[in-house]
C-alpha cells in the first residue's frame, strides 16, 4: 500500500478528483493549505499600498492506494494538475504499513 500526497493548485482539485475516480480510487482527503516553494507568492497593491503575500493558497490531497495502482495514480494526478507554469505542485509517495477500517476492523488493502 502507498500513501500518495500531492500539493496542487486549488482550482485543479475537481479535475484531479475526477481523474482519480476514473481510476477507481474511492477515497480522498483534501486540505486547504498555504505554503511556498519556488513560487514565492506575490505582492498585492491597493491604492499604492503594497501587501506582500508570502504564502500561496494550495490544496493538499491524500489518497491511499494499492501498490500496483500507485504509479497510475501518480500519473493521473500529474496530468490533471499540470498547467505548465510555476506552482503546479509536487507529489510524494510513501509506503504504508497497515490500514484499518474502524467500523469493521478490516485490515490492509481490504480497508482501503
Amino acid at each position: 500500500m502507498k500513501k500518495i500526497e500531492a500539493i496542487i493548485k486549488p482550482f485543479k482539485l475537481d479535475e484531479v478528483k475526477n481523474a482519480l475516480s476514473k481510476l477507481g480510487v474511492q477515497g480522498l482527503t483534501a486540505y486547504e493549505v498555504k505554503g511556498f516553494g519556488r513560487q514565492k507568492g506575490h505582492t498585492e497593491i491597493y491604492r499604492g499600498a503594497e501587501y506582500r503575500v508570502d504564502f500561496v493558497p494550495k490544496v493538499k490531497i491524500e489518497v491511499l492506494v494499492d501498490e500496483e495502482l500507485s504509479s497510475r495514480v501518480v500519473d493521473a494526478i500529474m496530468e490533471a494538475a499540470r498547467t505548465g507554469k510555476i506552482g503546479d505542485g509536487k507529489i510524494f509517495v510513501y509506503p504504508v504499513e497497515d490500514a484499518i477500517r474502524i467500523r469493521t476492523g478490516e485490515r490492509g488493502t481490504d480497508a482501503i
Partner: protein
Amino acid sequence: MPYKRADQAIPARLASISERYKGGLINLRKEHDAAPSGLELAQKRSDLMDEIIAAIFKEALKGPGVAASPALKGISVIAVGGYGRRELCPFSDIDVMILHQLRDSESITRIAENLFYPLWDLGLVVGHGTRTVKESLLMASTSFEFQTSLLEARSVIGDPALFQKLREGLAKQLRSRKGKRFLQNILKENDRRHKQYGQAAYLLEPDLKEGEGGLRDIHAILWAAIGLLGATSMSDIERGGYLTSYDAEALKQSLEFMLRVRNHLHYLANRKTDRLFFEHQEKISKALGFNDRDGTRGIEKFMRSFYTHASAVERVSRSFWEQLKDEFLSPKSFKDIATIHAPESGIAVHGNRASLSSPSAIPEHPGVEIRLFKLVLKQNLAIDFKKLGFIREGLRSNGTPVRWTQEIRDDFIDILSAGESALPILETMDHLGLLTRYIPEWERVSCLPQHDSYHLYTVDMHLFLTVVEIQKIGAGSYDTSNPLLRQIYDEIGRKDLLLIAGLLHDIGKGAGKGHSKRGAKITKEICARMGLPARDTKIVSFLVENHLLLPDTAQRRDLNDENVIIDIAATVVREDSLKMLYLLSIADSLATGPKAWDTWKDSLLRELFLKVLHVIISGEYTSKKSIDRMRKTAAKVKTALASRYGEEETDLFLKQMPHSYLLAQASDDIVEHFEQMRTSGDSISIIAKQKNGVCELTLVARDRPGLFYKVSGALALHGVNILGAQIYTRSDGMALDIFKVTGYFEHGISEDKQDDIRRDIKRALEGKISLEYRIAEKAKRYLTKGILKGTPNVEVDNASSDFYTIIEVHAEDRIGLLYSITRVMHDLNLDIHLAKVSTNVDKVIDVFYVWDINGQKLYDEEQINDVKRAILMTLN
C-alpha cells in the same frame, strides 16, 4: 460507589412488575406508531412510571432490613424535573427523590436500595436522592438547578403531608426577597443555554430541548410562573395577563409539536438525544406524516414547521421575560414613569418601551410599524412585547397590499444599517409576518431549511446575518484579519444598495437550482415595488445575480490566467459594483457558518478582487468600446471558423489566445492566424504578406528560449527594418509573432528575399548560424541614421500588471536594435510573453511583458536593476 445488591434473589413480585413495565412500553410504542402525539404520550409514559414506582416502593417497604413502620408514614416518593411535570419521552431521565423524616437511617438506606436497584435493573437512567424536607430546602437555596427541579415536583406515593411541607417551604423561599434573585438566575441560565446551543429556530441541525426556542424555554416560563407568579399552568399565566391567549395557544402547540418530535427522535436514536441531525430529520418527517408533494419535500415541510414553532417560542419567551424584568428587576423610579409620550403619531413610548398606540395606527399611518422599529433602534428603546399584538391586529385589518413609500424605504434601510442590534428587530419583523407583508417573496425563504453541511442557518436567518456582516465590515470588526475590507467599504458610494442586495441575495432559494438568476429576477420586482430608480434596481439585481461569481472563480479558476481576470472585469465593468460584489461575497460567507470562511479562502478571493480591480481601473478591457470590440471580433471569428472547423476547436482557440490579441487584431487577420497555426502544427511557419506598402511577416512556432531574439536577429541580418512587432503566446505554448518590416533601403521586400529570410530564421532557430558575429559585421556597413543621439531609457514597471513585469525601452533606431535588447533579456532568463514594438521615424518604443524563468513577475530589486543596466549597456 460500586453497585452492590443487598439481596441477590429477585422476588417474584418484582419480576411481575418488570413484566408489567415492559408490556406498558410496548403499548406506548404501538400508540406512538399508530398516531404520534406529544404531550398525551409523554403523560401516559409518566403515568406508567408512577404505577411502576408505586408498586416497587410498596415492595421496598416490606423488604429485609426495614424496620416495621406504620405504612407510608413519614416517607414519600417525589417525582421531580421532567418526570414531576409528567413529561417523559422514551429515554428521558427519571428524576425521583425519597423524602422522609425518619430517624432510622438503616431503614432509609434499605428502602432506597430496594427502590432504586430495581429501577436501574429496568434499564432506566434514574436521578436519585434521599433527603428530609429541611435538607431539600437547604439544597434548593444553594443550587438553582435543584430549586427549579423541585418547582414541578409532585408526590408519586407516600405521606402526602410531608410533600405538602416541602411545597410550602419552597413557596416561602421564593416569596421572600429571593424572588428577584431567582428571576436573575433563570435569565442567566437562559443566556448561557442559548449561547451554548444557539437558536433552534434558525440552525439547520437544532437542539430541540436546550436551543433558544426549544422545550427548555417553555419550561423556564413555567418555572417563573410557578415560582414568582403563583401560577401552575399556561392557562394561569394567561389569566394573569402575562401571555396573550394567542401566545399561550402558540406555546401549547409548540410544546405538543416538539414533544412529538422528541418522542420519535428518541425511538430513532435508541437513546436520549435532543439534537435534530440531518440523518434523523428525513425519518422523523416521514413518521410524522410530512410527505413529498407538489415538488416540496416532506423533510422541508417538516423542518419549516419545526422552525415556525421554535420561533414562536422564541418570540413569546422574549416578550414574557421583558415583562417579568419590568416587574421584578426594574428600579422603582423607572417603573413609576407612567408618562406616555408619542414621539410620532401612532407610536407610544412608555418608559423605554415603544409600541404602536393602537392597532388602528396601521391603517391610519401607513408604514408606522416600520417607523416604530426604526425608532427603537435609533433611540435605543426596547420593544414593548406586550403590545406586539397591536401590530398583528393592525396588519390583519389592513387588507390591501402594502405600498412602499420613500419614507418607508428610508426607514427600512435605516433598520438594515443598524448592524447587530438590528438582528432581533429583523427577527421580530419576520416572526410577525411583517417582512412578508412588504416583500411577499420573503414567504418562500422564511424558515426555509438548507440541506448541506456548509450552511448553519435557515435562509431567512442567513440573509439577516449577511446584512449584519456587511455593517460589521463597515464598523471595522475585521480590521485585524483584513484591513482592506473596511477601506473598500468606506469607498462604496451606495451602501444602501449593498444592504438591500445582502438581504435579498438568496431570495431565489427554495425552488431548485439556479437561485442566483431567479433571485435577480425577483429582486427586480421587489426593488421596483420599493420604488428604487431603474439604475439602482439594476445594480441590486446585478449583485444578486452574481453573488457567487467571485467566490466560485476564486476557487475554481486559474487566477494567473489573465483571460479569466479580464472576463470577470468585463462582466462587472464598474469599480463600485466590483467593490460591492466583493464585500457581499465576504459577508455571505461569514454569515454561512464557520466552515465557509477562513484565511485560505480570504486570500484567494482578495487576489481575485485586486486583479480584477486593476483591470477595471486601467480601463483597457472594460470600456464599452473594448468590450464591444472583443465581443464583435470573437463573434465574427466564430462565424467564419465554426462552420469549417467546428465550434469546439474555434472556442478553444479563442480561449487560449490572450484577450489583448482579440482587442488588437482584426477578425480577418485572426482567421488567417488560426489557419496558419492549425496547418503548421509543431513546425515553424512563416507567411509574408504585403499590406499598405509594408511587408507583414507572421511567424508561428512553438515557444522556446530565445525565439524572439533569434528571429529579430535573422531579420537584421537581411537588412530588414522592423517597424513594429507584436508577439503573443497561446496558453498551450505556441508563439505567434507578427512583424511589420521594410527593407533598410527600399520599401518592399522581394519574393526572393522573403525566401532567404525564411531560410535564415529557421537556420538561426536551429543554431546553424552565428547571429552575434554576422550582425556585428553587418552593422559596420550601415550608418546610424540619427545624427543627434538621444539618451536611451529603460523603465521597469511592476505595478501596471498583476501578471507581468513590463519593460519599456526608448531608444534611437539602429540595425539589430531589437535583436540586442531581446538577446540581453534572453541572457537574463526573461521570458517575453507579449511585446509591442513601434518605430516612429528614428525613435523606437519597445514594450515587453516578461516573466522570470519560473513564470513569475520580477520581485528581486537587484535583478530588476541588472535588467535595466544590461539593456542600457547594449543600447550605448
